[in-house]
């Protein structure tokens, strides 16, 4: 392990050395056109002057990496960690915030279906992605609820020229994993169309063969994404895009040493109709209607093929939105208004529930001088169930010179209580405990009492005031440096989160089990530093290095440390620890880093791409009896992962690719369930 760290450090050092050398050599001119992005402001903006911390993943990078699903490519980015939460679902952690706090968009509109708070990102194929834009930090001023830790926007490819083009590809990998893509793009004058289809299947994997259950059971899914574009004129354009996704997975369970088998199905449908209207050189409007439905159904049969358990989840979102941008000389004012109509019908809900909300937002993108950019925004959300929210944001960019700029932002983020936290009504069939949503808890407790199932209620618990939205204040301060062959991006962040929703015991049942409900309980904070650098040694060889330092702690633990200061040592004796021994929140690593080597051999049209990732130790739960994670707890050890791919172009149209994900074959079966062993792959692609 030590030697690997040394290697890492050496590589970084080399990079810095090289960057110093280059100052003497400033002959080469960088002709790269500026990258434009849309997620940060909802208007086209040049990335380098954007006052927000942002990461871009290009289609070229995705292609080069040889990965197929959204979660795989995201996990290769600095400051983005894909981790399973307590419930075992893999989600995204950004700036130390859990997966429930990152909004996921496809072409600017959100994915739904957070069955247990987390979106499964493996359901998004990367086969037709143009680029992925990631905005870090609270973005509720533009996007409302959920965008508390940040926003990830997946932007799909669009036909640009008048011709018929496309690509076909097939990839085979370990665990009998198949991924087949067809992406067809067609354009003729005013009309263009794009059809993307993807089929994916895998046998899943099993890290511990001694148990009858696999970590991932076998499944298959397909995606069909037809899109149509019609340009009535230069100034009036229509887009109709659709996405259908279908997944079927083996559902296997062992309950009280009995075997159960069944299926789990997922169906998703997204439809977006958008009209872009350029009134004149100053006014530009977008009218958008978005509808989506996410549905899953699963069942388990016992060994006699008799239905044992069935569950379903059916969520709808309908969102019309209008945005208008007024372009003044150097400034832009963007305003938007829209509404959300959301319904959910699922197992463990008494009835179909729905949310209604209306929102309005305004943004002023102000460029008082060449050097300054000031971005201010505010959004107001009025909601049918929880208190309305006002989310402001202010961000400033200052260009010191051509190469170097400073940026800083402060913003408010929030996440509304979700359907589950308000309406859940679940009693565990084998153990007998109950979890109740906040809005149904009082009535259900009264029912339990009337039925004589209640022993006592926890003193002081009442449901008089509505459950409040979780909210955060987010600060970022960063620099952006680009000169010649070197690019450095540094950002320090701080998030203070209030009213975090957690479960608490509200009553004891006569069966000895507890009834839980959701409350605004804790206050946490996260802070850290993200560093990204890329250095192009030559046109053919470039190295990038990324690092994140993170601290995430619970404020109430620090304030009331006396309640947590005793632990049990290995001899079961009580020992006192000090405040400085508190490690922080579960599932957070202090250090994560990556280094990526990209090498092109033009002669043989070959690209070699090697990525190494490091994650320092983290704790999953308290192991010594004080309910918090302290340095004497048992930790998941730190580890390195490596992904490797080689791509070779043959002629104009063919590409062959081979590689390995998790090249070093690192696994930790008992602690890390989402890390399969080494996965070798080969791919063939035909472009036309």
């Amino acid at each position, binding site marked *: 392990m030590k030697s690997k760290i040394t290697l890492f450090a050496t590589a970084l050092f080399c990079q810095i050395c090289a960057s110093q050398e280059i100052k003497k050599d400033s002959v080469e001119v960088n002709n790269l056109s500026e990258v434009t992005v849309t997620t940060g402001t909802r208007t086209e903006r040049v990335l380098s002057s954007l006052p927000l911390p942002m990461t871009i993943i290009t289609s070229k990078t995705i292609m080069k990496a040889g990965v197929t699903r959204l979660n795989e490519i995201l996990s290769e980015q600095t400051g983005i960690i894909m981790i399973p939460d*307590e419930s075992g679902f893999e989600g995204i952690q950004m700036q130390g915030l859990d997966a429930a706090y990152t909004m996921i968009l496809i072409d600017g509109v959100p994915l739904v279906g957070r069955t247990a708070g987390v979106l499964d990102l493996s359901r998004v194929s990367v086969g037709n992605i143009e680029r992925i834009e990631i905005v870090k930090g609270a973005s509720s001023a533009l996007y409302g609820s959920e965008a508390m830790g940040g926003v990830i926007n997946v932007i799909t490819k669009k036909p640009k020229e008048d011709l018929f083009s496309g690509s076909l590809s097939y990839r085979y990998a370990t665990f009998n994993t198949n991924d087949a893509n067809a992406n067809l793009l067609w354009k003729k004058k005013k009309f263009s169309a794009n059809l993307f289809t993807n089929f994916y299947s895998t046998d899943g994997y099993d890290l511990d063969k001694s148990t009858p259950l696999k970590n991932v059971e076998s499944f298959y899914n397909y995606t069909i994404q037809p899109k149509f574009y019609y340009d009535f004129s230069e100034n009036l354009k229509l887009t109709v895009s659709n996405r259908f996704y279908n997944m079927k997975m083996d559902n296997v369970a062992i309950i009280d040493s009995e075997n159960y088998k069944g299926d789990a199905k997922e169906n998703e449908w997204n439809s977006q109709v958008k009209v872009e209207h350029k009134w004149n050189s100053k006014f530009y409007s977008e009218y958008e209607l978005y509808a989506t439905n996410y549905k899953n159904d699963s069942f388990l049969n016992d060994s006699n093929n008799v239905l044992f358990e069935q569950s379903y989840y059916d969520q709808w979102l309908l969102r019309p939105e209008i945005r208008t941008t007024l372009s003044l000389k150097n400034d832009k004012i963007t305003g938007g208004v829209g509404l959300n109509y959301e319904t959910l019908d699922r197992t463990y809900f008494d009835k179909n529930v729905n949310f209604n909300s209306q929102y309005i937002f305004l943004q002023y993108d102000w460029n008082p001088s060449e050097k300054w950019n000031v971005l201010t925004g505010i959004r107001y959300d009025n909601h049918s169930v929880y208190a309305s929210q006002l989310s402001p944001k202010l961000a400033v960019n200052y260009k010191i010179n051509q190469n170097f700029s400073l940026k800083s932002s402060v913003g408010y983020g929030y996440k509304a209580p979700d359907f589950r936290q308000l309406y859940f009504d679940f009693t565990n069939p084998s*153990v*007998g*405990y109950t979890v109740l949503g906040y809005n149904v808890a009082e009535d259900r407790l009264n029912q339990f009492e009337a039925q004589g199932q209640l022993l*006592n209620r*926890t003193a002081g618990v009442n449901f008089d005031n509505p459950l409040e939205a979780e909210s955060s204040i987010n600060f970022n301060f960063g620099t952006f440096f680009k000169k010649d062959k070197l690019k450095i991006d540094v950002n320090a962040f701080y998030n203070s989160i209030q009213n975090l929703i957690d*479960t608490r*015991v509200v009553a*004891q049942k*006569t*069966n*000895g089990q*507890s009834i*839980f409900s959701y409350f605004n309980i804790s206050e946490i904070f996260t802070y850290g530093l993200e560093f990204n650098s890329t250095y192009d040694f030559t046109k053919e060889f470039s190295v990038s290095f990324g690092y994140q330092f993170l601290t995430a702690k619970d404020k109430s633990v620090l304030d009331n440390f*006396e*309640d947590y*200061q*005793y*632990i*049990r040592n*290995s001899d*079961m*004796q*009580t*020992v*006192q620890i000090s405040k400085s021994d508190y490690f922080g929140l579960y599932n957070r690593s202090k250090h994560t880093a990556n280094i990526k080597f990209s090498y092109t051999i033009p002669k043989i049209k070959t690209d070699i791409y090697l990525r190494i990732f490091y994650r320092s130790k983290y704790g999953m739960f308290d*192991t*010594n*009896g*004080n*309910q918090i994670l302290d340095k004497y707890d*048992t930790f998941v050890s730190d580890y390195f992962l490596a992904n490797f791919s080689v791509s070779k172009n043959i002629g104009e149209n063919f590409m062959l690719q081979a590689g390995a994900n998790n090249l070093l074959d690192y696994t930790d079966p008992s602690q890390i369930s989402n890390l399969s062993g080494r996965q070798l792959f080969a791919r063939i692609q035909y472009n036309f």
Partner: protein
Amino acid sequence: MKTKFLKLSLLALFIFTASCSSDDDKNEIPAVVTTKVSNLEAPQTGGQGQPVGGPFTKFSFSENKVVTDNNWDIAFRGTTIIVNGGAKIGITDEPERTGTGAVSIVSGTFASVTAFPAATTFAQDGNATYAFPTSGANAWYDYNATTHIISAKAGKVFVVKTHDGKYAKVELLSYYKDAPATPDATSASRFYTFNFAYQANSTTTF
């Protein structure tokens, strides 16, 4: 277990003789001995949706053993602990309170608790009230709803006034047979392991 008991008895005898021999010196009270009780079985009937019942396992600190007579100080059944003082709580198969027992809860390491807590901090069992709380900050255990593991809280020392007015301090260590460091779903439960120190002398410290 037996040899341990023998050793402890010898130790107790030694302390007893030692304290006899130093009778003249009235200022010196010998330090209490910490005794570990392992695998004290506390079965219950019912549970998991059924009414809980069955006799309590009664323990005497002065005798350092399970007793069946009225000389018990605290008694166990499942996760419930009762004290021999006050009145019946109102649960099934509960023994009569015949003594003057009470409980005071102190935070700290076992060794750090040396002074008897103030008399006002002691609580007795009573109608629907437990001297050993079953939930909240002073419950002796934490229950993990995901793993269903009962873990004894660290740093909770229960100072028990015995049925006959003496004092003992108790720290509960484990609810599982042979006190595994990380119990799992297969560990046999309702087997208490705890440390206690009994002060037989009339004094105010352990």
